[in-house]
């Protein structure tokens, strides 16, 4: 396996807070990498830097052999990195179906002024995707009428509709009801594996990490404190004390 995304020496501070204090991380093609760590450790900052929303003050990010450090989000998406958000970023006045279709259009050509957005081909592709996410029943509902868990799924579905090679997900299961969590993640993982997508996800639920991650990176104060297979990393007493303890109580 080769590195799809390669971060070297990323540094970024807000005021005095070091959100990234020398991050080195290689994401291997095809793997599922979980990021865990207490709030404020810089997990989201890493995603923001990798997707071009924030520019690191030092360090480089290489994707698929090309340097993408500080490139704008639009360019990075077109290269094949998509992301989902901790707080779902949906077009609230559009239906779920339209939200997905807009994502498909973004990939397949938004600058077509006459054919409708909900053209048969895109509608079909969207329906297929919604089906896999179990969102078909709410396809015609406005995004602002959905409950938080459903919004979260729709948010991820939009990112998947972009057909990325690498998907960065910021807390994909927060807001999803505990009883549905495992089923949701299972669906998600199946969809991503089928599409051959490499995934990085920030996660607080250690059961999810244990079951679905190939590797786990532990974030602490802008640094990676531990990195490796979940069984190994989660068994580390230091990690258990500093991260899991916090997560279990949160």
């Amino acid at each position, binding site marked *: 396996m080769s590195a799809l995304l390669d971060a070297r020496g990323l540094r970024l501070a807000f005021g005095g807070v070091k959100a990234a204090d020398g991050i080195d991380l290689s994401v291997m093609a095809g793997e599922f990498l979980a990021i865990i760590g207490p709030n404020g450790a810089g997990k989201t900052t890493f995603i*923001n830097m990798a997707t071009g*929303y924030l520019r690191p003050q030092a360090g480089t990010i290489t994707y698929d052999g090309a340097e993408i450090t500080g490139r704008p989000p639009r360019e990075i998406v077109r290269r094949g990195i998509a992301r989902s*958000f901790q*707080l779902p*970023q949906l077009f609230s006045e559009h239906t779920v179906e339209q939200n997905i279709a807009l994502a498909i259009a973004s990939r397949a050509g938004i600058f077509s002024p006459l054919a409708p957005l909900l053209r048969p081909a895109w509608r079909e592709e969207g329906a297929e995707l919604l089906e896999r996410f179990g969102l078909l029943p709410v396809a015609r509902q406005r995004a602002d009428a959905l409950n938080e868990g459903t919004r979260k799924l729709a948010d991820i579905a939009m990112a998947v509709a972009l057909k990325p090679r690498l998907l960065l997900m910021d807390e994909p299961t927060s807001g999803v009801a505990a009883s549905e969590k495992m089923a949701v993640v299972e669906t998600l993982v199946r969809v991503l594996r089928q599409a051959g997508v490499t995934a990085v996800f920030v996660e607080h639920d250690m059961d999810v990490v244990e079951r679905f991650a190939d590797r786990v990176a532990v974030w602490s104060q802008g640094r990676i404190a531990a990195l490796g297979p979940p069984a190994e990393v989660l068994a580390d007493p230091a990690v258990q004390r500093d991260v899991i303890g916090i997560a279990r109580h949160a």
Partner: protein
Amino acid sequence: MGGWFQDNGPLLGLALLDGIASAALIFMVAVGLNLVFGVLRVLNVAHGSLFAIGAYAAASVGVFAASAGLPAWASLPALLLAAILVGLVLGPLVERLLLRRIYDEEPVLQLLVTFALFMILEDAQKLIWGVQPVSFSTPVSLLGTVDVPFGADVIPYNTYQVILLPLVAVATLAGLALFLRRTLTGRVIVAVTTDREAATAMGIDARRVFLLTFTFGAMLAALGGALSAPTTSLVPGIGASTIVLSFAVVATAGLGQIEGAALTALMIGIGRSVAVTFAPELEVVVPYMIMVLVLLVRPQGLFGVVETRRI
């Protein structure tokens, strides 16, 4: 270059003085617009109309005072009185009846509402004061002229515009800064501006702060208008040109910047008066050229700070 300066020195000096005088007035309006926007998050398109109404009201009160046999010096407090009256009447009226209904609406609707108010006030002012030019120059003649040295030349200029107006503007700037930093009410206003939710959570009555701020902003606009009344003859349309000009100042300085607005007003005021003197056709264009140039280089304005949206 030296030759040009020798020939045009007095003209340039005059243009600078004109610029300072008009900058003082622009600042008074722009600072109110800025303050109201900072606290209410609503851009009041009708702010220029408050300037116009303040100007007309001042002329009326001044003329009335003169006809009532009051001495000429009374024209100065008359200006102030007119501005306070306009602010106290229109401020609460507009805030209570109109703005209060739209604080939670989309920005586009807020803009439309204040634009509608602008349409209403522009005609209201024509209905009350007519379309014939109105002038009231007692305060200017009262204060006489002062000789301003400029290089080798001496330029006689009226005291009202070159001394009084800048003094009022500087006093407003300093007073506002002191008020916002040192008084409880001022700090409450700043708190609401910086973080409305946190301020309300701490028990601050945001509605009272809005009412107070809007009334105060209206008063500043009316005062700007009242002070401008003696320097020009009043015609319909000053409301429109004032809002556009003061928006140019606010946009160039950066939304919410008070000291920045003062510097920008000076820059735009002088830019415009220099244009009036040396390239009269460009008079109206110059302020916007300055604005467009600044915004092209710094979209957040000269003194503005970039806000990163949280995602």
